[in-house]
């Protein structure tokens, strides 16, 4: 599913070169539940962006779903994201002027799916996240937990192979947070997707079957916890 070989990412800050990710080898199989943890500045966000195809490595090879994606064009990468990756962000990133269902519809709209099929898929996704009664609300009319559930519905609506969650509970209180996590875990099992959660919340990280710890741009620990 995900196959990183000797991936290094270097940023230029002023005159200094900063290695955010150094020589990372990482293989994640289909259906795995992985948490990536580490202190801030450890390079875990950079690694996530690389996995998410939002960023390109400075060197190394990346195969996504057996396809070498390192030298795809921006639009081709966008195509892979559109069809295969669902995103969940810490601050939800809902478009405020759109209703919950329109937000969920967005990836399908971008993918050019026909309106009739779009409606079906949106309904299914809203149903899966128990948001059917909130479909016509705009994001300011929703609670934080509900907003993140809309974001989850948006992430799963295209039936992606991989869901990337960046601090999904970071802006939520404990109750709403655990609801969101439970939902993600439930969807992973139901739909058989690969779930990668980036967090520095140890409680959340330890729920994953496989826990990766990043320190100073390198994988410091890669533990398969038996659930």
């Amino acid at each position, binding site marked *: 599913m995900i196959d990183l070989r000797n991936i290094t990412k270097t940023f230029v800050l002023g005159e200094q070169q900063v290695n955010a990710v150094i020589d990372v080898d990482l293989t994640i199989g289909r259906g795995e539940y992985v948490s990536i943890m580490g202190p801030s500045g450890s390079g875990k966000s950079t690694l996530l*962006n690389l996995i*998410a195809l*939002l*960023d390109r490595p400075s060197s190394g090879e990346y195969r996504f779903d057996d396809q070498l994606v390192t030298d795809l064009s*921006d*639009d081709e990468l*966008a*195509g*892979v*994201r*559109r*069809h295969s*990756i669902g*995103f969940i*962000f810490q*601050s939800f*990133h809902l*478009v*405020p*002027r*759109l209703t919950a269902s329109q937000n969920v519809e*967005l*990836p399908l*709209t*971008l*993918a*050019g799916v026909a309106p009739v099929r779009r409606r079906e898929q949106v309904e299914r996704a809203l149903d899966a996240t128990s948001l059917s009664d909130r479909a016509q609300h705009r994001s300011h009319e929703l609670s934080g937990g509900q907003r993140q559930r809309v974001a989850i519905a*948006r992430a799963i609506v295209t039936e992606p192979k991989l869901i990337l969650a960046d601090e999904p509970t970071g802006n939520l209180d404990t109750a709403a947070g655990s609801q969101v996590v439970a939902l993600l875990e439930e969807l992973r099992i139901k739909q058989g997707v690969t779930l990668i959660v980036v967090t520095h919340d140890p409680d959340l990280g330890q729920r994953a079957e496989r826990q990766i710890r990043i320190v100073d741009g390198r994988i410091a620990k890669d533990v398969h916890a038996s659930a």
Partner: protein
Amino acid sequence: MHPLDVFRFAIGSLRSNWRRTGLIALATAIGVSSVLLLTALGEGANRYVRGQFESLGTNLLIVLPGRSETVGGPPPLLGETPRDLTVDDAYALLQHPSLQQVAPVMVGAAPVSTPAGLEREVTILGSTSEMLDIQRLQMAYGQFLPPGDPQRAASVCVLGSELAVHLFGSSTAVGQWVRAGDRRFRVIGVLADSGVTVGIDFNDLAIIPVASAQALFNRESLFRILVEAATEQDLDAGEKAIHRLIAERHEGEDDVTVIAQDSVVKTLGRVLTTLTYGVGGISAISLIVAGVLIMNVMLVSVTQRRAEIGLLKALGARLADVRRMFMVEALLLATLGAVVGLVVGLAATQVVAELYPKFPVAVPLWSIVVALSVAMSTGLIFGVIPARRAAALDPIEALSKR
């Protein structure tokens, strides 16, 4: 992404910022409506002048005695006195088929008095019955000079509308006698107020038969000859024929000047059209200003919507999709303004038309086409930079900044 969805997305964004949308559309609308209104005024002026001249007859040729031509060489030993134009010269022009009607014109001034003792110095025009038709005159009362032998000095006259009021007040002028110089004339008609302000003021003069005028002023020479060509196409041939015919009668000397009224109208029309273009062009500058406003607003919008753009890109929007969204938004802004401006401009023209019914304002079609296309293309052109900037946003950066 489906074009319809791009459209819907842009409309949604415009609606969610309706205040901003309205203000920018207003700027474009002001530009478009001012182009329309100003060109309508220019076109109105053009039509007004044309109308004035056309009411004097467009196929009109005016023959003046003497040549207005600068000739080099030493001055002639004997003074070159042009031969006078005579009534016979005038009627001789009718030999040519392209010349339909002639009216010899004599002008002088004489004191005109009424039996009641009112006296007034009046311009007196000596002419023939054809003048009525050639100058498109209308009668208010009575009749114009009777047709017949132009050499017959009938003692009749026709008064301009103002003159009739001056001399006879509200009482009937037709049938009264007036004295002009040492002769008496019976008033047989009063002209209608022509409303025409170019050329001769027919409201304040008296018209008598040309033979009577010759007797009254004791001279033979004509002031000018009015000639009407059969059609507009005959004007050139007619002008040449006049020179030839006059030369034949003046011992080979072509000593007249011919002015085509049509060419005067056309020249004036050209001047006014150029003026209209100029005014329209100046107001089109406001459209470009509106375009710059659109660009600024779209740039601000790109900055404000960084997170949204980043999200769209993360969710897999192609560069072209993002670009198109912002282009369509800019274009819609411009179009909205253009449509509002069109409506306002046409309405304002209508208001002017109602307020000044004599002034024939009309929005020329070309100005609508130009105003709308300039408005839309400024939207398009000035939309490019914001759209590119939006498409070039790095999704990671755009999403991380809060």
